[in-house]
């Protein structure tokens, strides 16, 4: 029995506490990195992860298992990230160098990795999400489609466009 089935069985028998603890054990790291790549600073990622898990805990009894568990979890995390970005425009407008500087002990990237982060930061939010999910997590377009509510064709176009822009931006930044 795989882990998601195990979690579903726990939910069906009303053992939500155990089911939730399994979710935290299995998915919290993946959700954290999904969030962190979007907001960059650890403190913000920690806050967003907390809100995400709180919503998962509250919503778990009403989750109907019609979609995959991780799709549901990623969708909540993605919505929380987008809400955060919307509410904290002042923060996201701070130059990326300063944001990374503030997070220095927890960002260990070299020159080219910093350039990549700068290039990604220039993308619009939705394209940034698509780029991160595909480039770093190598997520399938079908899964991304379920999470983001966008068609596979539009996601492919979006990724292709983002990829081209990032590639171009890195070369400019490293001239």
């Amino acid at each position: 029995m795989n882990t998601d089935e195990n979690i579903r069985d726990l939910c069906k028998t009303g053992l939500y506490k155990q089911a939730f603890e399994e979710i935290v054990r299995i998915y919290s790291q993946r959700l954290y990195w999904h969030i962190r790549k979007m907001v960059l600073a650890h403190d913000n990622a920690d806050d967003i992860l907390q809100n995400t898990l709180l919503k998962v805990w509250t919503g778990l009894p009403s989750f109907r298992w019609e979609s995959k568990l991780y799709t549901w979890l990623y969708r909540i995390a993605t919505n929380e990230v987008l809400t955060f970005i919307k509410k904290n425009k002042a923060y996201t407008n701070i130059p990326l160098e300063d944001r990374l500087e503030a997070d220095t002990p927890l960002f260990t990237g070299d020159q080219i990795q910093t350039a990549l982060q700068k290039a990604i930061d220039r993308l619009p939010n939705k394209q940034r999400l698509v780029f991160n999910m595909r480039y770093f997590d190598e997520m399938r377009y079908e899964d991304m489609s379920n999470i983001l509510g966008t068609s596979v064709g539009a996601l492919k176009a979006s990724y292709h466009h983002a990829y081209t822009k990032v590639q171009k931006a890195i070369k400019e930044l490293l001239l």
Partner: protein
Amino acid sequence: MSHKDLYNPHLKENPFTVPEGYFEEVQARWALFTAQTQADRAAAPERAKKDRPFVKLLLPQLQFAAAFLLLFGLGYLFVATLTKNRLDTPPADELSVLNEWAYWGIDHHTLYDWVQEGIPENDNSPFLLDVDIEDLLEYMDYPGFDPVHLDLNSIYDIRHLP
């Protein structure tokens, strides 16, 4: 392959770290939270028993309020139904952009090709003066809209709108 190329595997490495023991702390934090929540829930029936006389006291008022809300709701529904047909505001036409572009002979597949391959520079039709890839991507972001598997018949119908 240049080191600046996105194929460079080094670029896929995670440059971010977390404080030591962070993920263990997250698990411990939530284990504590769920245990506390369950303890609160278990204690709730006891509290409810103690509160019952007060709830009983409020019951007639609550019933009165519910009846009022029901009547108000029915009245609102009645008025809303009566006025529904008088609203002349047309529904938002999500396909208006498509209609406009279809006039220039541009369909979803063309848009998709443009995003993938870029807008042809030698085409000087008036429409192309305003077009932007970001707009196209935004346009393709309708939930349920798939430019690759679109039914061509629907495009045909739209093209021949009066």
